């Protein structure tokens, strides 16, 4: 007896647990999706902070990929390799080619340093790190190689600023001297098949800048840092050359940038001059990809400028400010780009160091050091920042900054991306190159989802509700078998609907589009005809055909209407659309016609939603208590009036929840949208364009997304959005339905 009771109790527990498991499942769904999304919202973190002391003032610094060894370059040409685990000096290298001169300017491009000296020479130094394994332990070995110095300035003056880029065959270097001259040197391999020949060009291009001096606007500036006079009191303060070796930017102490086009090295030309600040431009540099130009000024402003297509400018391009970042409120002195994404670090004279991200305009992290951080570097894997300060300290911060490009603004707002004419909503998660800027705006996808849903609901709601009204109120009892047939429609896999929509319906509608336009008219005409014929029928046939069989009686008429309108395709095309509907749409309405478009999705998804709306609203309508309809009929109302005035209002909560559930289905439908549209993430209500919906986007991109990456998490966010939307809609619909059920049971 005891055993039986025990079993009974255990069973009760087990079953309750099983029941509750459903709640857990839904909760787990939400929680798990959220856990995967959460890191997007969390900012960057500093994992470790270290300080080392240096032997002297340095002018440049760098670090290896694993942040084990850093190197510093000092004015006298000593390169010191410092172990970042204990601060000891691993290796010292003296640049031999320097002789007795000192380094006055540096341009660092990844691991290649180009140094300018105080006697007008330039010197290339390559620093590489190689790994070797010693007893299964990784050892990083630094190596330095230098090239013969080249005399760039024949007057042997000090080189204030330097910028240099090179590829396999060409090198371009631009320097500014202390006396304000701007010199360009370019070497190019013009190798024929047999002998390699070098073509060398040397140009003094000071004139390009000098000619455009502002009228006596003298800006006070730090004369110790920037003293190369241009005349008129304006100096060249910074230089930047892109890796295409075509665009040279020259920043001046008067707050202007000269954009010099050097694609023709023989004849460089000034393309544009822009005022970027009311104070001196102090740093110039490119973000990864060399398209966006980061401009730091004397006030501490950090802005990003880019060449944007503009019809009004003679060259067709114009420098425009695309991003503004948090100001340092002190002269910006150093800049270092990330080699992974569009992030960068800047430092200012007041000891602040900012880690920023250009796309999201986000100030990710702020560091503060006691003295001026004169040299900066970003580790190759973008997981660490090093700064050397003027009081001979080296700071290292190891950071975790997994998703800097995501803010609410980049997800849901307009962003000015590289290569775009204005801020826009764009979804483009992957590109062909490493320096691609991911464009992760969810707005086009949300828009696509809404567009697909709206068009399919326009088709599904009237058909579903009318069919339900007819089935519940007018259909003859013996024909109730039709109901499961429609329910069978709900069981059709969406992949079948999508396949037919994409490969059968889309080409078909493209061919007979004019017929589709006139089809509703013909269907209504055919109903009128059927109605007329029905009334003309002798009563003995009517008797056989009973009321409530109209739906069956209509079948041949509707097939006829469809057939006739397709036959009249050519006629209607020439009458309505002047012979070619595509041209007509394009010229009269300005609409483009894609084969796989929103109309197709509307039909196919409507097909999937109709049975849902039908079943639930039919249930609601046929459950309307009999006494209500009977009372209405007894008062002399016709069946139609009873249906519209009594049944519809009473069942309206049920119908409402049916529409909501249909809506939920359409929002999340994946395969139909995937197969029946072109999946192009464009925005616009054009019925004849495709779109990309959230759900289809997940299906397309998720298999390719690296686990834990930004795209992966953004896709989880898309899933979470879908989940939350449908959760709200469904819960609401379900509550309404439960309430209605209770109300009916009271009636």
């Amino acid at each position, binding site marked *: 007896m005891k055993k*039986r009771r025990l*079993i009974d109790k255990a*069973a009760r527990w087990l079953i*309750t647990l*099983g*029941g*509750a*498991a*459903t*709640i857990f499942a*839904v909760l787990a*769904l939400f929680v*798990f*999706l959220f856990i995967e999304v959460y890191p997007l919202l969390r900012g960057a973190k500093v994992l470790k902070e270290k300080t080392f002391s240096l032997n002297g003032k340095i002018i440049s610094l760098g670090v290896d990929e694993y942040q084990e060894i850093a190197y510093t370059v000092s004015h006298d040409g000593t390169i010191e390799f410092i172990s970042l685990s204990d601060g000891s000096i691993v290796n010292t290298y003296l640049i031999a080619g320097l002789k007795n001169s000192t380094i006055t300017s540096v341009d660092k491009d990844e691991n290649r340093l180009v140094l300018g000296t105080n006697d007008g020479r330039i010197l290339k130094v390559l620093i590489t790190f190689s790994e070797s394994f010693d007893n299964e332990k990784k050892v990083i070995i630094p190596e330095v190689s230098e090239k013969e110095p080249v005399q760039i300035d024949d007057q042997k003056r000090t080189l204030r600023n330097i910028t240099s880029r090179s590829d396999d065959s060409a090198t371009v270097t631009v320097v500014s001297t202390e006396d304000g001259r701007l010199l360009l040197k370019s070497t190019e391999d013009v190798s024929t098949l047999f002998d390699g020949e070098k073509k060398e060009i040397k140009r003094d291009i000071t004139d390009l800048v000098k000619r455009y001096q502002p009228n006596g606007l003298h800006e006070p500036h730090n004369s110790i840092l920037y003293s190369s006079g241009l005349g008129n009191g304006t100096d060249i303060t910074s230089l930047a050359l892109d890796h295409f070796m075509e665009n040279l930017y020259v920043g001046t102490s008067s707050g202007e940038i000269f954009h010099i086009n050097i694609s023709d090295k023989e004849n460089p030309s000034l393309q544009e001059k822009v005022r970027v600040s009311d104070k001196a431009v102090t740093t110039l540099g490119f973000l990864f990809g060399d398209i966006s130009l980061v401009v730091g000024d004397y006030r501490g402003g950090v802005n990003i400028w880019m060449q944007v297509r503009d019809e009004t400018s003679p060259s067709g391009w114009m420098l425009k400010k695309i991003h503004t970042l948090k100001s340092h409120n002190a002269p910006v002195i150093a800049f270092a780009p990330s080699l992974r994404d569009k992030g960068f670090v800047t430092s200012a004279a007041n000891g602040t160091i900012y880690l920023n991200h250009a796309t999201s305009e986000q100030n990710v992290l702020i560091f503060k050091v006691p003295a001026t951080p004169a040299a900066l570097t970003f580790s190759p894997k973008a997981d660490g920042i090093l700064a050397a300060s003027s009081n001979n300290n080296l700071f290292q911060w190891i950071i975790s900054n997994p998703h800097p490009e995501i803010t609410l603004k980049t997800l849901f707002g307009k962003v000015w991306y590289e290569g775009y004419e204005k801020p826009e909503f764009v979804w483009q998660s992957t590109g062909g190159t490493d320096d691609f800027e991911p464009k992760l705006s969810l707005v086009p996808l949300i828009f696509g989802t809404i567009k697909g849903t709206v068009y399919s609901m326009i088709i599904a709601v009237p058909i*579903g509700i*009318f*069919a339900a009204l*007819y*089935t519940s109120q*007018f*259909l003859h009892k013996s024909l109730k078998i039709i109901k499961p047939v*429609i329910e*069978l429609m709900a*069981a*059709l*896999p*969406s*992949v*079948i609907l999508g*396949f037919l929509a994409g*490969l059968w319906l889309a080409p078909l509608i493209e*061919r007979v589009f004019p017929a589709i336009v006139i089809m509703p008219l013909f269907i209504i005409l055919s109903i*009128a005809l059927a*109605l007329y014929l029905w009334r003309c029928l002798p009563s003995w046939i009517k008797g056989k055909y009973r009321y409530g069989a*109209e*739906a069956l009686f*209509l*079948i041949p008429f509707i097939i006829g209407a469809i057939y006739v309108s397709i036959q009249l395709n*050519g006629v209607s095309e020439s009458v309505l659309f002047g012979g070619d509907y595509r041209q007509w749409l394009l010229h009269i309405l300005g609409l483009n016609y894609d084969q796989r478009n929103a109309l197709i999705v509307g039909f196919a998804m409507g*097909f999937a939603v109709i049975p849902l709306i039908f079943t639930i609203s039919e249930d609601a309508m046929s459950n309307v208590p009999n006494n209500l309809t009977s009372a209405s009929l007894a008062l002399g109302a016709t*069946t139609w009036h009873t249906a*519209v005035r009594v049944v519809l209002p009473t069942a309206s909560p049920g119908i409402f929840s049916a529409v909501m559930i249909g809506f*939920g*289905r359409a929002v*999340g439908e*994946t*395969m139909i949208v995937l197969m029946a549209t072109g999946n192009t993430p464009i925005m616009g209500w054009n019925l004849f364009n495709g779109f990309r919906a959230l759900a289809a986007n*997940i*299906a397309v991109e*998720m*298999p390719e997304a690296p686990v834990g990456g930004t795209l992966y998490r953004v896709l989880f966010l898309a*899933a979470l959005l*879908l*989940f939350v939307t*449908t959760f709200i*809609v*469904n*819960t609401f619909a*379900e*509550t309404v339905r439960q309430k209605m059920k209770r109300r009916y049971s009271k009636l």
Partner: protein
Amino acid sequence: MKKFLRTGNPYIWLTACALTISMLMVGGLVALITMKGLGIFWPHTIVKFTLQDGTVVLGEIEKEEPIPQKKGMYRTKLKVGNRDVYGMDFRWIDNTDIISREYPLYALTFERREWGNMYGFLKGLKQDGDIQPLNLKELAPLREESKALLKRIRYIERKVIGKINYQMEKYRLALKHLMTQQYSVKAQEDIEEVKAKVENLEKTYREKEDMLAGLYAQAKEKEIIVLLADGKEKNIPVFNIIRVYAPNEMGVFAKIGFYLMKLWEFVSTEPREANTEGGIFPAIFGTVMMVFIMSIAVVPFGVLTAVYLREYADDNIVARLIRISVSNLAGVPSIVFGVFGLGFFIYFVGGNIDKVFFSESLPAPTFGTGGILWASLTLALLTVPVVVVATEEGLSAVPKSVREGSYALGATKFETLWKVVIPQATPGILTGTILAMARAAGEVAPLMLTGVVKLAPSLPVDQYFPYIHFERKFMHLGFHIYDVGFQSPNVEAAIPMVYTTTLVLLFIVLVLNLTAIVMRNKLRKRYRTTAL
């Protein structure tokens, strides 16, 4: 007229129209798929067109349609095959260009292992450099020969080499495992032993490979020469021919026989040529197996929930929450389940299983990647509501009096449930299970994230321990439709196959649903009588 409008009759007709349209949509869709899907295996006659510019083409007529923008003109889409010669399978011909059309009796359709069909005339046999005339009857023994050869090749490739690969992988993992262990003489000996075994295996592998190469060379020895429509000659190795037939010679019965044979081939063999030809057996197998694994997971879960809701819960907050959860599980988009399955089952659960049990083979994931188990579990979550609703209906149909009778005899609640209520509600549970299976068979979106592939190298069941491989990727009918119809390089040639695959899927889904509907109706009828 006004009076007539006021009766509301026209509006009733309008609503009737909505129902008619819905019915036509279902009927039309089923009819369309059936028509298009069933047609493709029927042997088409081969037509020979002579065109105005003197060219001669041979092929099957695919369809005829009016030329857009040209009144009263028609064009014909001809399947000319011979992709290796012409580059394209299809050719559009304006009907006005056609001077004559003939149906040559001896025109042959060659189904080939590569490059699709070839249409032409059999000219001769090339063997060791000699060319001899040959007719269709004489070709038959040669084909038998090459079939036997193929069987041998397949045996070596699949069974023998498959086994070697399987053992190699086992030894490789064992070796890796041994390497990580503490150094000892015993371990060193073991390592040597395994290495020797691996070497042995490699030797056998090379032998078998040489043997295969020999067999393939042998397969290429005999070639038939086919005369194409434009007078060119083309050699095809006998080995590459799957089937040769002369459709213009066939009678109706021959055609029916041919049709059935092709249909059987379709459902029982593996796909060829990037899924655009051959059969869909692995997809059917994958679908069925996934659906079964899913049922095993979903039925207990769904039934427990339904039993709780019907038999145990009062109208309290928990029950209401469960109801909302169930309706949400039904309403949440399937792709969200896919995302959940990917993140939770695959990367979280699977990743941890790999760390604990399959650490030797890391970083190559075993369970940490899409597989049939994870796909099934994901779909199980998706189909819970279907089982819950149907089971609830089954439970509620059991009359109260039956329960009360059981209680009166002194049975506890659980005993009543177990011995009386559940047996009576079995048809309801079964209905739910079948409906869940139907739903799972047609669902594709979540599978795309959790382990379906366009071409699985091996079935999830084979002769190697543990026989059922839950971690393997699988093929699925629905995904097959998507993949072949939208991702294959030669969509035009693949479309007929997609229709047939669609028909198979539709057939499975409809049969399952109809079974469920019939069962549900029977259940309802039964209790309508017992309740009296």
